[in-house]
């Protein structure tokens, strides 16, 4: 296998991740495809010997291409001056009601793209790469052409703007992902105490009918009850993004059989919904969160075959 064949293979292994990333940075499937295609052309003329971490390099290149697209798009717009009103994002759900927060979480994926469209290009890229895809700030700095500290500030500003939007006042993507990761770890290890600490006292485990037919636990309420039901489970689950938020998916053989989504209230998991209905799964925007890209050994990350 020569260098370009190896690079093509690596690109293929990363392609769906890059498309998902580009889609969230650009908010358009067509533009995301164009961005990844442009990355592909850069791959074909790259010098393999000069690249230490190809997955990270691909992320950087795709991020830069997306940033260029966003800057070009912004320069075409004559009506952009500061932050615009965000259409379709109005009242937030009640602050601490898990049921209303669950309804809110369902709309987060689509609404997030609308809110992201209001961010300046650098902030959008820094925020998406860090808060959604856990890309470290030194890598983001390379993408936006600034220091890691400046990249951190950009992401932080983007986060504040997103959270300043009523619909996202209660949604903190980094914290949400950290909770889901901690939940996955505790469930796999059967750490009952850790699970209880992560769960809201009134947490609800809510499987759909298809999940029940597949053997899921029935509807369960309360931190200790839900922890008992889930402790030692989730061994086959993988960390994914579902409609823009960290979630878990069970995908034996690369085929998604169920998706577990989480609602966070007061820094704890307040609702866990298990979706196994194939029509509903098909409507979800699910993609892998590939944490090994930057050498995170603590979580081997999901299969690329999802």
């Amino acid at each position, binding site marked *: 296998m020569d260098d370009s064949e190896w690079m093509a293979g690596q690109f293929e292994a990363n*392609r769906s991740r890059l498309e998902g990333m580009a889609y969230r940075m650009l908010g358009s499937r067509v533009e995301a*495809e164009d961005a990844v295609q442009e990355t592909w*052309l850069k791959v074909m*003329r790259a010098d393999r010997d000069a690249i230490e971490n190809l997955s990270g390099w691909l992320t950087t290149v795709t991020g830069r291409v997306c940033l260029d697209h966003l800057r070009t798009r912004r320069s075409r717009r004559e009506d952009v001056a500061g932050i615009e009103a965000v259409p379709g994002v109005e009242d937030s759900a009640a602050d601490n009601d898990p049921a209303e927060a669950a309804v809110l979480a369902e709309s987060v994926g689509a609404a997030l793209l609308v809110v992201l469209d209001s961010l300046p290009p650098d902030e959008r890229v820094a925020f998406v790469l860090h808060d959604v895809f856990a890309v470290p700030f030194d890598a983001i700095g390379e993408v936006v052409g600034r220091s890691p500290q400046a990249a951190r500030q950009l992401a932080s500003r983007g986060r504040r703007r997103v959270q300043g939007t009523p619909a996202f006042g209660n949604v903190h993507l980094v914290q949400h992902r950290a909770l889901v990761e901690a939940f996955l770890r505790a469930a796999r290890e059967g750490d009952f105490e850790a699970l209880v600490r992560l769960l809201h006292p009134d947490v609800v485990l809510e499987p759909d009918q298809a999940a029940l037919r597949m053997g899921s636990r029935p509807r369960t309420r309360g931190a200790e009850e839900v922890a008992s039901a889930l402790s030692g489970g989730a061994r086959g689950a993988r960390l994914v993004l579902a409609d823009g938020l960290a979630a878990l998916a069970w995908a034996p053989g690369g085929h998604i059989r169920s998706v577990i989504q989480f609602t966070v209230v007061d820094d704890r998991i307040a609702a866990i919904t298990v979706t196994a209905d194939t029509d509903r799964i098909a409507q979800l925007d699910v993609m892998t969160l590939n944490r090994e890209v930057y050498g995170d050994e603590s979580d081997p990350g999901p299969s690329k075959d999802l």
Partner: protein
Amino acid sequence: MKTMTCKQLGGPCDLPLQGNTADEIIKLQDKHLKDVVAGSDEAHKTALKAMKGRWRNPIAGMGWYRKTKREFAALPDE
């Protein structure tokens, strides 16, 4: 600067595309295909589908890419 036609790049027409590198020409051809297909041109649809297939299946698409680079390299400078 060199010139290749849409037909030389797998398309159906003789539109000339100019560039300093094969990559530039490929990007121009990609844009040309998208533009004409967006204008409801049926003849270019197959070529656009093939172009998309190359980066979606990069290993299989490498043959076309290499062939295009070879053909571009063999052309005289203008």
